[in-house]
């Protein structure tokens, strides 16, 4: 019986590794371009999940004032708060799991994608020996293209950016995305948490970018830029430009 690891490899990791390497062959043996193209394809495939998550998140945020009112009204009865909150969700057709489930589904995809990039970029023998177990035997063009050319712009994609431009770009794009996602809140506790996230997330990803291969940072940067574009079309600039924030035409008018 196959293990969870075997199934993960069969369903996610192996197809991703082979697709990434095939893109490398098709796009002129440029692995940086292959990562950009691969990120675009994966994000397009995940678009329905992303949109569902964003809409669920927006609806929840819109209900925040009413939930806070319920919390004030029934402050001594936790059970009542819970019941009334659920009734409010039902009334507006919102599920609290609406933004959690799409996020959870994306986890293994992200991990598979990260691993695919790291494995394909490996410039050490054990990495290549490990990769050999995941390349489809019938993709002879891919076998012949190994080891891949790791050079892209000023970067060796298997190593961190030596001049720290990517950590700055990844940190800045994470901040912009995070700022757009943050919904205004009257709750001081929520405000504090938002502030914390706005500082820790960009710093965390900038730190990862300093530590990990720059190929992975390219993925993070492109992924952030795509998220910013999607976010703009769903919720506008959000908290980034609150005074002028106007949401463009909803992209999901067909949704329930």
């Amino acid at each position, binding site marked *: 019986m196959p293990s969870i690891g075997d199934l993960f490899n069969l369903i996610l990791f192996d197809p991703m590794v082979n697709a990434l390497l095939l893109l490398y062959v098709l796009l002129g043996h440029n692995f940086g371009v292959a990562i950009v193209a691969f990120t675009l394809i994966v994000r397009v495939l995940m678009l329905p999940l992303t949109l569902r998550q964003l809409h669920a998140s927006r609806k929840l945020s819109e209900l925040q004032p009413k939930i806070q009112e319920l919390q004030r009204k029934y402050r001594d009865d936790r059970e009542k708060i819970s019941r009334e909150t659920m009734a409010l969700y039902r009334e507006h057709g919102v599920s609290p799991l609406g933004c959690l489930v799409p996020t959870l589904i994306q986890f293994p995809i992200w991990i598979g994608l990260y691993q695919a990039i790291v494995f394909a970029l*490996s410039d050490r023998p054990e990495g290549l020996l490990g990769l050999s177990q995941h390349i489809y035997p019938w993709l002879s063009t891919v076998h012949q293209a190994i080891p891949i050319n790791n050079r892209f712009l000023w970067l060796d994609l298997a190593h961190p950016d030596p001049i720290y431009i990517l950590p700055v770009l990844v940190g800045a794009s994470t901040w912009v995305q995070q700022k757009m996602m943050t919904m205004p809140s009257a709750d001081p506790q929520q405000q504090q948490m938002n502030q914390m996230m706005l500082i820790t997330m960009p710093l965390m990803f900038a730190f990862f970018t300093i530590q990990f291969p720059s190929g992975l940072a390219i993925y993070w940067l492109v992924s952030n830029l795509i998220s910013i574009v999607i976010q703009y079309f769903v919720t506008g600039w959000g908290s980034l430009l609150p005074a002028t924030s106007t949401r463009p035409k909803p992209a999901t008018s067909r949704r329930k």
Partner: protein
Amino acid sequence: MSRAGLILLVGLLGAAACAPPGPHGWANVAFGVVGEGTPLVYLVGAEAKLFALDPDTGQVRWQFPSEADRNLTAVYGPPAVGNGLVVVGAYDRKVYALDGATGSARWEFDTGAPVIAGPAMAAGLVVVGNGAGRVVGLEASSGQLRWEFRAEKPLWARPVIAGPTVLIAGMDHYLRALDLQSGQLRWQFRADGALPCTPAVDQGLVFFGGLDSTIRAVGLADGVERWRFAVGHWVWSSPVVAGGTVYVAGLDRRVYALDAATGQTRWVYTAAHRVKADPVVADGVLVIADEGGQVVGLRPSDGQVLWGGQEHNLGAPVVGSIAAGRGRVFVATQNYWVYSFDSVTGIPKWRIQTRK
């Protein structure tokens, strides 16, 4: 779960999933006679240290570096033994030459990039390639640079010295023949895939495999292909030639015995796991070891298993070279054990662990 918790979880999972592998190195063994006829087994363990062992007892004579808290970062290739020296190339970019009998340092040379390939030594020269495609010819006595040659991509295969020629297999798909004394290119042959394994030379032919899943024979004098043989997966194990037969193991779990002159199949043996370790012919027995740690002795004429039972299952991957000498084979695993077996009967002789 709060949004903050979710995102932090993503970060942690991402960090765990993305930790770049290695460098860990591979355990390799070489056998040599140095000094006044003292035979020693040289083990480069997965802990990136070089050990000299007594072939009869496994007792450690010396280790390099001798300090407990120092190592060579990672070592992937076996050491070269000769001229009273043992020479090892390391991921820390350097080539180290030591007195083969005592382990005292003679010289070291910084190649400028991690050394993946092991060195070769003959005619007073040490030849080694590095991860940046640089090949250097060094004076064995002093470590002085005699010549250098640049390939287009990393060199992961140990050079082979055949008379006045040194053969270099490269990850740029090229097998090159250089003049041993000057480093001048004599000829080059382009394969369809990268070449991470060391070629073998016999009767004027060079045998090698690569990531194009093909075993080839080319002429030593002219580099012209004589025959090729397609296998099921990459070949990352160095061929060994004996009695007119070339034995090659592949990552398709098979060991192929091919007629050295024609490439015709004589027999095929299927191992339990992938075979990355270089096989060896010792006292008329072909010894192989797979990634599952199973060691097997085969009859070279027909591939029949002579020995290879439960006592030969080492329980950890074997990916480096196997050595033979004094009627024994020496096999090292990735979990810091080295084993000695009688090469004819397979009877275990001793085993030691170099790191707990």
